[in-house]
């Protein structure tokens, strides 16, 4: 891996997404303002923040990741002195960088809008959960290089996560204890954050391993 090449490619993607990112940051700031405002506006802040997270995730996945092949710019990039593994790492790093600022602000809006009020632990868990979700979808996009594969990963995740949250968790005895412990800032917070970070790291590692085994890069 060459840090310089990766940094240049990350800079390229950030430059290409400069205007949409500015719009997402502005929307995320508005969502915080709404969420922190009168109770009547909180739901608007919450839904705007969710829209920022969803829109940003799709935009990053469909634009700099899947869009490169469709727009035939991938062949141009891959003809430059970069290795496929570095290009994949750059995509992941660029996506993380693009997500961090507007995503972090939108997660703050969600934490503020929740009945508990803003707590750093809740903010961290919300952002971490979305990053874990996003990293799996992003890995699917980079590995499969297809919209179909990405949508399959996305819908599969929503199906599994949704059913676990709605059907399974309420039936478990420890769910209530876990929620109370999280709200109290207990050991469940770092444990959950650790799981979320492990999921992100696993998605990154899997992406690089699969990229290393590919035989076609355009």
């Amino acid at each position: 891996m060459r840090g310089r090449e990766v940094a240049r490619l990350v800079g390229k993607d950030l430059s290409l997404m400069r205007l949409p990112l500015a719009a997402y940051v502005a929307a995320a700031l508005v969502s915080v303002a709404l969420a922190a405002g009168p109770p009547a506006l909180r739901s608007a802040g919450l839904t705007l923040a969710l829209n920022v997270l969803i829109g940003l995730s799709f935009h990053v996945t469909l634009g700099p990741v899947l869009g490169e092949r469709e727009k035939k710019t991938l062949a141009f990039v891959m003809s430059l002195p970069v290795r496929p593994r570095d290009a994949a790492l750059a995509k992941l790093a660029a996506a993380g960088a693009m997500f961090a600022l507007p995503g972090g602000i939108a997660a703050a809006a969600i934490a503020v809008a929740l009945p508990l009020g803003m707590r750093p632990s809740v903010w961290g868990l919300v952002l971490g959960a979305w990053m874990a979700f996003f990293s799996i979808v992003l890995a699917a996009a980079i590995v499969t290089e297809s919209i179909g594969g990405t949508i399959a990963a996305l819908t599969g995740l929503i199906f599994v996560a949704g059913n676990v949250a709605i059907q399974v968790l309420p039936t478990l005895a420890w769910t209530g204890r876990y929620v109370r412990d999280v709200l109290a800032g207990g050991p469940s917070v770092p444990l959950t954050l650790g799981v979320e970070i492990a999921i992100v790291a696993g998605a990154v590692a899997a992406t690089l391993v699969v990229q290393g085994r590919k035989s076609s890069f355009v």
Partner: protein
Amino acid sequence: MNAQAIRLEGVGKRYAGFTLADIDLDLARGRALGLIGPNGAGKSTLIRIVMGLVRPDAGRVRVLARAMPADEREIKSRVGFVSDDMALYRGKSLRWHMDLVASLNVNWDEARARVLLDRFELSPHRSVRGLSRGQQVKALLLLALARRVELLVLDEPTAGLDPLMRHQLMAILDEAREDGCAILLSSHHGEDVAAVADEAAFLSRGAIVARAPVATFLGEGGSLEAAFLARVS
């Protein structure tokens, strides 16, 4: 210095319904080789293998005396690639692309880039969106030649261009060859290959069916297309 710009030994690649079989091919530094064949003959696959964009299932690939893909980055820094299946970022200017390529290449020669801008009549600050297909090919060539590459690999660079633009591009390639740059060129147009290449190789159904100096083929059939058809039929 090793005299080979490209050396393929026993290279094979299998896809569903297509096999590139046991290809041996070499190209000396400073020389130009044209690949001629119909759609699906394997020209693009062969070129992508040379560029490291596709990994072969079998065989050895050496470019500029280095092994692909082990020395991929080093090779790509000395090779320029232009393809009809390649595009620049439409919302960005040529200057933006020049800065990107320069940031990834220690060989970038800004003075030469400025000379080429004038020579190709390109404006660096104009958005790529406003460039014609021919101007985009010129821009891609500029981005390669300003790196002082030792090998140009071109996959159907004249596809979709009008005759005047094709003539201009062939003149640019001829100049590059005279400057010592080796060229591997695939084209549907036999006259493009004849204008630039010293030798031509005919590809059909994933195999090289003939290779000879361009003058030899022209002497046989009057045109490269005629010589190709005589062999394939």
